[in-house]
């Protein structure tokens, strides 16, 4: 998915939409409060997240070996494993699996990786109905939209919008704004779809190398329906999702549900360890796991950027981000919005095209403060800003240096020239203080500043002049 307009334009548009702003602010406030209630003891939280970080970091350190072990364990359990270098490769693979079995009706649990792949559109174009069954995903699929949040895909909509949409698009549905009734409507439609489906597709929250287990975290039951009712289950995962042992899952799961939605526990944690076994009466006849790279191995190659892959997709960074809260998810024009998207998208799509996105952060650090696996998002943003404008040979980031402009280059050179020469700085400070009210507001930077703020006016005398008047020792 590529940006058609710049982030600044799409953000400005979202800022001008009071409905979007109100929807996100209310939702994010609720999520922040719920999360805070789950971590009442700061020391306990730090201990938990140090553990989470250590588990994820260790998994990544051993990644190639763990992936091979996962594959062997899965095969032993009767789960077939496939590898895809790119989204295209992944899509073709999945289509091939479906076509070989004559499957045309696919129900989907929830999978951000499938969003990354643009799988739904690809399958529809090849005659396969790919139906989202997570309520939020179902809601946005009806309107052919993309998720605005990785955990709550329809968070940008309010119930009036959803009520109108259901009454127009679901057969025989009466208009209602009652959330229970809207949920019941979706339940009715989707139960039929689960019943009829030829295949189910899901994401994977954690894949356990030593037991060959696919772990799925959910509240609605659509994940279990998609993975246990149809005869064929296809799971897709980014290659970073692997952990070493089942016990690793326990703390990560606790961090995930608490960080994401402020729940101590989700309704379901579903561990899948194979298709229908001997003597079993239900469950899929076949389970397939598709492991996707799509730029992850490139991210992996850089020790600093590798931390990006620790992510367990909880969305806490979004919920706490003052930028995301104001502009919402769609403004980012990316599969993964918010802080994690700000570092992930440029690494996947190339840092040059996403230059502006990288500057759409005040580096306030709220994201890193709540991240359950301690990803230093602001540091990585700064690192990627550099990559966008410099061609450091040591780096493997795509598109590095392509965001460099002569104007910015000149600006920083001037900046350094002035500030590394105290005499020049002193002259500039003298001018600024003497002509304090005469500085034209039309200067490029001042013009941007004064869009919503009064023009800053320098003091009559600089501190350095005042200090000289006082006669302080220089050391």
């Amino acid at each position: 998915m590529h940006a058609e307009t710049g982030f600044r334009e799409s953000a400005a548009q979202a800022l001008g939409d009071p409905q979007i702003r109100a929807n996100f602010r209310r939702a994010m406030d609720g999520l922040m409060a719920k999360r805070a209630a789950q971590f009442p003891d700061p020391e306990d939280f730090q201990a938990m997240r140090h553990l989470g970080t250590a588990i994820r970091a260790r998994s990544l350190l051993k990644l190639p070996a763990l992936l091979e072990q996962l594959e062997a364990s899965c095969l032993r359990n009767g789960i077939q494993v496939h590898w895809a270098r790119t989204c295209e490769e992944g899509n073709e693979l999945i289509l091939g699996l479906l076509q070989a079995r004559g499957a045309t009706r696919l129900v989907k649990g929830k999978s951000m990786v499938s969003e990354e792949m643009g799988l739904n559109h690809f399958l529809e174009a090849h005659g396969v109905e790919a139906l989202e069954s997570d309520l939020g995903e179902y809601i946005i699929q009806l309107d052919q939209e993309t998720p605005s949040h990785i955990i709550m895909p329809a968070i940008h909509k309010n119930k009036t919008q959803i009520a109108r949409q259901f009454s127009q698009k679901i057969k025989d549905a009466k208009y209602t704004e009652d959330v229970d009734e809207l949920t019941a409507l979706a339940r009715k439609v989707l139960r039929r779809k689960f019943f009829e489906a030829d295949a189910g597709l899901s994401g994977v929250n954690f894949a356990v190398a030593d037991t060959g287990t696919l772990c799925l975290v959910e509240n609605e039951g659509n994940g279990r329906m998609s993975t246990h009712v149809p005869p064929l289950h296809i799971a897709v995962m980014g290659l970073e999702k692997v952990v070493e042992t089942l016990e690793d899952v326990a703390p990560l799961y606790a961090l995930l549900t608490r960080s994401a939605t402020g729940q101590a526990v989700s309704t379901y944690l579903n561990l899948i360890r194979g298709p229908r076994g001997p003597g079993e009466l239900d469950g899929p006849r076949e389970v397939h796991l598709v492991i996707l790279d799509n730029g992850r191995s490139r991210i992996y190659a850089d020790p600093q950027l590798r931390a990006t892959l620790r992510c367990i997709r909880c969305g806490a960074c979004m919920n706490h981000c003052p930028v995301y809260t104001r502009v919402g998810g769609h403004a980012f024009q990316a599969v993964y919005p918010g802080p994690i998207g700000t570092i992930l998208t440029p690494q996947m799509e190339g840092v040059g095209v996403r230059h502006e996105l990288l500057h759409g952060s005040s580096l306030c650090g709220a994201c890193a403060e709540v991240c359950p696996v301690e990803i230093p998002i602001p540091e990585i943003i700064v690192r990627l800003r550099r990559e966008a404008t410099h061609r450091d040979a040591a780096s493997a980031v795509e598109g590095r240096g392509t965001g460099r402009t002569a104007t910015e280059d000149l600006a920083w050179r001037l900046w350094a020239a002035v500030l590394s020469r105290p005499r020049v700085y002193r002259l500039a400070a003298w001018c600024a203080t003497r002509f304090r009210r005469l500085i034209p507001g039309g200067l490029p930077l001042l013009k941007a500043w004064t869009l919503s703020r009064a023009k800053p006016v320098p003091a009559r005398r600089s501190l350095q002049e005042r200090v000289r008047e006082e006669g302080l020792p220089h050391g």
Partner: protein
Amino acid sequence: MADARAEILERLRAGGGGEAVPLPDTAVLARRTWAPAERMARLRRGMEAVHTEFLEAAPGQWPGVVLGFCRDEGFANLLYGPRCAAGQALAAAWTPRDPELIPYQDPVESFKATLFDGVAAGFTTALAGVAETGGLLLEPGPEEPRLLSLVPPVHIALLLASAIEDTLWSAMRTRGWGKGTARNSLLISGPSKTADIEQTLAYGVHGPKRLVVVLVNNL
């Protein structure tokens, strides 16, 4: 796609290393522990907070409690796994004029229509409980099929108080949940729910609308 596999693994091998990794310290998990009676109370609090209902039963009396509940609720039938000991105990307590007791004994392909549209409630056992957060641990399989706890609108689960563990982590360690040969293992904390519309909780979305735990106090 063998070449995809080789290429991906090769890239990862070439790109690895270069960082010191902290050692996981599980002390923070190990210190979450409660006395048996407190475990029972905690589990109950945690699960009731997410709309789980509880029925209490003395050891050996639980089939009667399940039966009484089904009658009171006016269920037309109850689906159960006939091959496990609890299922057999349930069948032994049943009488012909009670709600129909349907055994889940045919492959889902021939049973799907009944399962989806003709069942009022499903009964399963729970392998263990999780005190810290509230939650049941199940291991569906040949004796109690996977869909038994998912498709019927009401899920009735049997839990022994003595099987309640401190945490999910300790249940994995002491009960081996998820580590055995079961091809599906489940943690279930309540009826299915969603908050996808305006962050408003709604219960009974795709999975069961009600979860009823029959808690046998055998402490």
